[in-house]
Structures are given as structure tokens and as C-alpha cells.
């Protein structure tokens, strides 16, 4: 069982255990009450004078008071004894769980530290002055935990935990209140002529001595004298158990700081969870710096350690983590706010306040604010706004004064991926043979991604729209600037200047949105890249050996960087174009044998001996860090990757031609690419909506000189020496940001290149 699962299961067991302890305490209480009430029957004897009856009643009450005094001592001692035993069991349980996290092979090196549970552990926890412990988060501290600058109504800071004093006080109050209630009820009953059976019924309900029922059944049976105290006992015991269990667990976690440095506050995902626990759910804190359960009476929250896998010599288990909710299992990253946001109006209204309005035929109330705020920000931030400084829920009146009507809260649409439904993909093969069919390559790429990129698909529409809108705003600004440059009228110039301000604001907003989407894809692409390198069919040593044999000419500066980047390319694409030799074909790029580090246009040229020379720049540093020239290097190396396998060339040609309506090249100047237009190009291209029109650039030989044509190609026949399909695709694989951009602009192109990371030669 995974660690969180075991802890959740333990929480359920603790709940059952709490019921057992509280049943023991409550049963004794009920027995005393029943015996005291039964004594009332003596008052019914005929012929007794009022003074005798009064004296008899005083005697019964005194006896009850004495019995309940004994019960108070028993209850306090019994609960502390049970809690002490629980602390030991819990500490042992947590130690076992931490032990299970560590794989057998490394247990010798990493040991789980146990903790000594002192004889007074439980008593200390439940007996400390409540004003001196503040595990309950309130006021500014709570605001800090929730990421809010302030929380409304900083009241209730004196709300304290149900510690030993309170438990003891509570037992005292239960006993004293019961005696008083008993006395008053009997006195009033006698004064109003109520019979003893009537009073007994009112006081005890169906409670009986030596009852074998559990705590819940006892509570339901009880009358005025027994039912409320039974519920109070249950609450006190459950809350104390939660407090001791979590304190024991945290003590063990802190003793193992090399395994865990942080913990996750974990609430129960159902409609009975309080606002404060719901808002804290899923948040991660350093030990001793965050809130601890219980945050309130009857709190069911717990703490789960965050295992420090980054600094441990083993990886997390591969199983997908899930967490239990009232609706069944959900992804482990579902926090309470997200869960609540997915619930129907009825549940949201139940949790956050609201009711069904029969006139309007819809649910109304505080929860509407949550829905609007969650749409504007995110569910977690929205839920935090529902918590007051004392941990209670913000009222509808406060929400109204803060936001007006719910509809007044603007829903600023931030990019949220709409997850498309996809058929499950089969597991990718470790390696593939080259294919000439783009469709097969695309399908392989999808298998490699294994549905992981589906969540990014929802951004595509927004991404393209934002880029288009950005271009439109820029063009509009250009028009205004042109007029400003031409005008000689100062007033007109000023007027034009004023019109550009809102456009500049809009342009900056669009850029922020584009950047936000770019960031979404980074992690997934980073992982795909890492996997491609890890799954390579060649070793780094093989790549280094092949690169070591290459002839480097030109600038010395930058050669080391180029070697490293070529090695990365070789490992990523299984040696294609770097380690592996392809069939010699005239004019076609092949395995790289020479690297010219020089200024001038980067290119890849067949040397006539079946190998290629690539010319690449030596400068890498620039505006965007070290990767500036890497894309260019990947581009040129990818020409060799394509050319060394005839199947790769055939696949690239088919990919380009299958998508184009016409194979007649056209001028690129007016063509629109998905990311970039063709304004900068000079050579004719085959037209389609590629990431850039340059992807459609053909390299065709139709010459009449037979000596320039490869074997098998007739004069006048169209022959593709190369394409820009693989080179343009592979250059985007030089870093995760560019990979994501290609994925957004042209997913088929992306998947085809991804398939090449598993294609071996």
C-alpha cells in the first residue's frame, strides 16, 4: 500500500478506535444516569410528606453528584491512558510506513529513526495550557498559510484546541450540567404533577443500564439527560485522538528529516469538511512552520509526509497516486477546492452556504461567489477567500459587501486546457525501423507521448488565436506609427499618440497570455526530451567517438559547445546522421564528416564522397542564453539525419506532399505560416499551413546533366535531394519551449519528429 493510502486507511481505523473509547466512557455515564433516575421511583410511594420527598430528592441528587465525580476521574484517566497507548502505536505505524518507502536495496544506507514515546507524551499534549500552544491557525498566521494578505474578522483568536485541560474541564462541565439538569427537571416535574415514568422517559429516552449498543446508537436512544453528553464525549475523544495521532506522526517525521522535510495538510474530500480544512487541503508546509490538525473539534484532517525523492538515491514508485473522495478515487493532485469546484450546485451550496429557491428554480447563496471567484482566479484561491481569520466561513453578508452581486465578479478567462477525449494508446515499442509513411510515424509519436500531451491540446485554439490577435494589434499600431511619422500637425500627432496607449496595453496583455501558455507545456516537453535521450539505442561514448573522428575547421572558439550539442543530437536521434552511415546518393546530405565553424549562412553540403559538411556559427551567447545557436546546429544535423536513410527522405517528402493541394512551388512572400509568415523567404515553396512556409521548400533536381543525377533518376524527372521537413522539425527539438511551440502549431509534424527519437538505423 502506498504511503498516503496507508495513512488514509489509518485515519479510518482511528475513527473506529475513537468510537470504541468514547463508547466506554459514555456507557459508564449512562449507567449512572439510569441508576439515578430509577431512584426516583421511591418518590412515588404513597403517604410521603413533601419535606421527606424533598429530602429524598436531595439525597438522590447528592448520590448522583458523587457518582459522576467518580466518572469524571475515570473518564479523564481512561482517555489519557488510551491516548498514551495510541501515541506508541501511531509512532510505530509511521516508522513502518517510512521504512516501506525505502527500497530494500538501500535500507542499509538509509535508516528510519524511531522516537521514544515518553510516559507523559499524551498527557503533555492534552494537558498543556491552551494559551501556550497554537497549532490551530488563526489570524495573520492563517492568512499566511492560505496565501491571503488578510482575512476578514480577526476574531476568535482565543479558540483553543481540545487539550487535556479542556477535556478535563469538559468532563467536569458534563457532570455538573447533568446534575443540575436532573435536579431542575425533577423539581419542575414534581411541581407540574408530572409522573415519574414521564420524567424518566424525558430524561433517559430509551437508555438503559449495561447497554451493549455503540456510541451512535446510544446517542440516538438517549433522552434529555444522556444524548447531548454522549455526543460531547464522542467529539472530545475523537478530537483528542486526532491531536495525539498527528502529533506522534509529526514527531516521527521530524526525526527523519533526511527522508522528509515537508508535509502535506490533507483534509477529507466530502461535504462535511470545514472551510478552514478545505482551504488548507493539499498545501505543503515545512515542519514546525505550518498548521497542524485538528483545526477544530471533530477535525478529520491528517498530515502526509512529502518524501524528499530529489535528495534520496531512489525514485518514487511508478504507480499513479490516487486519493479517496466521497465520489470515489480521484487523482492525487485533486485538492479540496478543486473537488468542490467539480461538485454540483447542491453540494457546493451545502458546503459554502446556499439553498434552492423555488421561485427562480435554482440554487442561490454564498457558493455562487465561489464559482465566480474560481473562474476568475482558481478554485484554491477562491476557497481561501471564504475563510475568516478565526477559521470559520465568511458570511453571505460579508461576501456581498466585498463583491456586490456574484455576477459583478468579472470572469477573466485564463487559459485552461480543455482535455480532449482520446483513445488509449498502446505502449510504445523500444525502437522502430524507419518508415516511409508519415501516418505510421505520427502514430508512433502518439504512442511515445502516451496521451500525456492531451491536456495541452486545449491550449491550441487559444494559442493560435492569441498569436493572430497579437499580429493584428501590432499591425494596427504600425498603421498609427506610420501616420505619426508622416504628420506635421502637432495636435494630430498627439491625438494619434493617445490612441496607441490602449493598443500597447492590449499587446502586453496578449504577450503575457502567450507566455503563460508557453510555460504550461515546458514540463511535459522537458520530460519527453529526457526520455528520448535516456532511451537512445546508442551510447554517449559511441556518439563521442563518431564526433571525435569528425574534421573541425574554421574558428576554434565554440568547437567544444558544438561537440556537446552534436552529441546530444546523436543520442536523441539514435546516431542518425552522426554515427550511422547511409547509402551514398549524389547531392543528398549524409553522415557528417566535417564541421566548418564560421560566419556565413549555415548549411549542409554533400561533399561528393557520401559524407556531409555542415557549416555552423561559433557564437552561441546572445539574448536568450546558451541555446541560441543550438537550434541552427540541430537544423543542419537533421539534414544528415534525413539524408542518411532513404526512408526518412521518402517519409518527409510524403509528409510535405500529402498535405499540399498543389505540388507546384509558389512564392512564399505572401504565405501565412502557423507561427511565422513567409515574408523573409526568397525561394519558392510548396504551399500548406506548416509552422513556417519554409517547411514546404523543395530541393529538386530536374537538370538535363545526367552526371548530376543519382542512379535510377531519369532526365527531367523530379527528384528530391532533401526537404526542410525533418530539419525544421528537429530544430524545435533543441529545447522544450520550441518543442511545445511546434506541438501547438503542427502536432502531426511534432509527432513525426518524436517518432524519429525511437527510430534506429
Amino acid at each position, binding site marked *: 500500500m502506498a504511503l498516503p493510502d496507508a495513512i488514509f486507511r489509518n485515519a479510518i481505523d482511528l475513527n473506529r478506535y475513537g468510537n470504541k473509547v468514547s463508547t466506554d466512557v459514555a456507557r459508564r455515564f449512562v449507567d449512572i444516569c439510569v441508576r439515578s433516575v430509577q431512584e426516583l421511583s421511591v418518590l412515588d410511594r404513597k403517604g410521603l410528606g413533601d419535606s421527606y420527598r424533598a429530602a429524598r430528592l436531595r439525597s438522590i441528587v447528592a448520590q448522583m453528584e458523587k457518582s459522576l465525580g467518580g466518572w469524571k476521574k475515570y473518564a479523564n484517566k481512561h482517555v489519557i491512558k488510551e491516548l498514551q497507548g495510541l501515541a506508541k502505536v501511531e509512532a510505530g505505524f509511521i516508522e513502518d510506513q517510512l521504512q516501506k518507502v525505502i527500497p530494500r536495496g538501500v535500507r542499509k544506507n538509509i535508516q528510519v529513526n524511531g522516537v521514544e514515546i515518553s510516559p507523559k507524551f499524551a498527557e503533555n499534549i492534552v494537558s498543556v495550557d491552551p494559551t501556550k500552544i497554537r497549532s490551530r491557525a488563526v489570524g495573520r498566521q492563517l492568512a499566511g498559510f492560505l496565501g491571503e494578505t488578510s482575512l476578514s474578522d480577526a476574531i476568535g483568536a482565543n479558540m483553543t484546541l481540545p487539550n487535556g485541560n479542556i477535556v478535563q474541564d469538559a468532563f467536569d462541565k458534563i457532570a455538573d450540567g447533568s446534575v443540575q439538569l436532573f435536579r431542575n427537571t425533577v423539581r419542575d416535574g414534581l411541581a407540574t404533577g408530572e409522573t415519574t415514568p414521564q420524567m424518566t422517559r424525558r430524561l433517559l429516552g430509551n437508555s438503559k443500564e449495561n447497554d451493549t449498543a455503540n456510541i451512535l446508537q446510544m446517542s440516538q436512544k438517549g433522552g434529555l439527560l444522556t444524548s447531548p453528553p454522549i455526543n460531547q464525549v464522542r467529539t472530545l475523544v475523537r478530537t483528542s485522538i486526532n491531536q495525539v495521532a498527528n502529533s506522534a506522526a509529526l514527531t516521527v517525521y521530524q526525526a527523519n528529516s533526511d527522508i522528509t522535510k515537508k508535509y502535506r495538510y490533507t483534509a477529507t474530500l466530502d461535504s462535511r469538511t470545514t472551510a478552514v480544512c478545505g482551504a488548507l487541503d493539499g498545501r505543503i508546509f515545512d515542519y514546525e512552520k505550518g498548521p497542524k490538525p485538528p483545526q477544530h473539534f471533530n477535525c478529520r484532517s491528517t498530515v502526509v509526509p512529502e518524501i524528499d525523492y530529489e535528495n534520496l538515491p531512489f525514485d518514487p514508485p511508478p504507480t499513479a497516486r490516487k486519493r479517496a473522495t466521497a465520489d470515489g478515487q480521484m487523482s492525487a493532485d485533486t485538492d479540496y477546492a478543486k473537488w468542490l469546484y467539480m461538485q454540483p450546485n447542491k453540494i457546493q451550496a451545502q458546503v459554502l452556504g446556499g439553498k434552492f429557491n423555488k421561485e427562480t428554480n435554482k440554487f442561490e447563496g454564498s457558493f455562487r461567489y465561489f464559482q465566480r471567484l474560481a473562474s476568475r482566479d482558481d478554485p484554491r484561491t477562491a476557497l481561501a477567500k471564504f475563510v475568516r481569520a478565526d477559521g470559520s466561513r465568511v458570511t453571505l453578508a460579508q461576501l456581498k459587501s466585498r463583491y456586490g452581486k456574484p455576477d459583478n465578479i468579472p470572469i477573466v478567462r485564463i487559459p485552461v486546457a480543455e482535455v480532449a477525449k482520446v483513445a488509449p494508446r498502446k505502449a510504445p515499442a523500444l525502437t522502430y525501423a524507419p518508415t516511409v509513411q508519415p501516418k505510421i510515424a505520427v502514430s508512433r509519436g502518439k504512442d511515445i507521448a502516451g496521451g500525456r500531451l492531451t491536456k495541452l491540446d486545449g491550449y491550441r485554439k487559444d494559442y493560435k488565436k492569441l*498569436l493572430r490577435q497579437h499580429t493584428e494589434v*501590432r499591425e494596427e*499600431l*504600425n498603421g*498609427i*506609427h*506610420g501616420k*505619426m*511619422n*508622416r504628420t506635421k500637425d502637432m495636435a494630430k500627432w498627439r491625438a*494619434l*499618440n493617445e490612441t*496607441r496607449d490602449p493598443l*500597447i496595453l492590449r499587446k502586453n496583455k496578449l*504577450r503575457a497570455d502567450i507566455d503563460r501558455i508557453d510555460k504550461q507545456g515546458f514540463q511535459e516537453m522537458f520530460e519527453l526530451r529526457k526520455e528520448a535521450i535516456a532511451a537512445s539505442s546508442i551510447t554517449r561514448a559511441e556518439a563521442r567517438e563518431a564526433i571525435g573522428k569528425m574534421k573541425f575547421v574554421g574558428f576554434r572558439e565554440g568547437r567544444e559547445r558544438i561537440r556537446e550539442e552534436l552529441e546530444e543530437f546523436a543520442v536523441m536521434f539514435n546516431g542518425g546522421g552522426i554515427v550511422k552511415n547511409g547509402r551514398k546518393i549524389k547531392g543528398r*546530405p549524409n553522415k557528417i564528416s566535417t564541421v566548418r565553424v564560421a*560566419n*556565413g*549562412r*549555415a*548549411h*549542409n*553540403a*554533400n561533399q561528393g564522397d557520401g559524407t556531409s559538411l555542415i557549416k555552423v*556559427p561559433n*557564437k*552561441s*551567447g*546572445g*539574448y*536568450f542564453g546558451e541555446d*541560441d*545557436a543550438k*537550434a*541552427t546546429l540541430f*537544423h543542419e544535423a537533421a*539534414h544528415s539525419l534525413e539524408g542518411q536513410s532513404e526512408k526518412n527522405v521518402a517519409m518527409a517528402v510524403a509528409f510535405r506532399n500529402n498535405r499540399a493541394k498543389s505540388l507546384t512551388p509558389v512564392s512564399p512572400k505572401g504565405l501565412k505560416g502557423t*507561427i*511565422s*509568415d513567409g*515574408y*523573409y*523567404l*526568397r*525561394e519558392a515553396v510548396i504551399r500548406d499551413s506548416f509552422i*513556417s512556409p*519554409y*517547411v514546404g*521548400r523543395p*530541393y529538386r533536381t530536374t537538370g538535363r546533366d545526367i552526371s548530376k543525377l543519382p542512379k535510377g533518376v531519369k532526365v527531367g524527372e523530379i527528384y528530391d*535531394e*532533401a526537404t*526542410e521537413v525533418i*530539419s*525544421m522539425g528537429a*530544430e*524545435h527539438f533543441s529545447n522544450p*519551449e*520550441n518543442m511545445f*511551440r511546434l506541438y501547438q502549431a503542427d502536432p502531426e509534424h511534432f509527432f513525426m519528429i518524436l517518432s524519429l527519437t525511437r527510430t534506429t538505423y
Partner: protein
Amino acid sequence: MVIKLLVKEGSENATLTLQSSPSFVVISGSEELKSDIEFESKFAYDSVGHIMNLGSIFAQDLYIFMVDLYGKENVEILEGKEQIKDDDKELAILEKNGVT
């Protein structure tokens, strides 16, 4: 040969300088235009399909890039007209003999 381009955008002006072609771009003047150029370069390619690299760019590519961004009337070549023409000639030769 130094190449200098002047971009005029209403009240904002910027000068882009290349010490040679190719080399890195030095942008002086309006911060607004500088941020424009940096952002747009992430979505641009040069004449031979390479992702735009302001750390090593040809005069011809820079000029075309600026003209596309701001319009021909807002971009002035202060120095290096010849170099831009030379870049174009080099590209024409290369395109006949190599795979770019």
C-alpha cells in the same frame, strides 16, 4: 562593415547595430521597441528556416525582420546598405549549391 537600422515608431525610436554580418544585435533607444523585437524573435525564422537568433544574425535577415514588424516606411537603413545586398547575393549562391 557596420550595419545600422533606425526604427521609428511614433514617439519611440530605436537603433539596431550589427558590427558585421552576421553578428549580435545591439539595440539602443526605446525599451518598448526592444521588448517588441525580443518577443517577436521567438516566433521568427531567418531566410533559411533557422529559428531567429539575435545573438548571430545577418544584416539581410535583420532588415527583413524589422520591415515585417514595423513596415518599410518605419525602417531606415542608416549604414550598411551594401552589406544587406551582399548577404542576399551570398544566399542566392548558397541556395543553388547546398541544403540550408
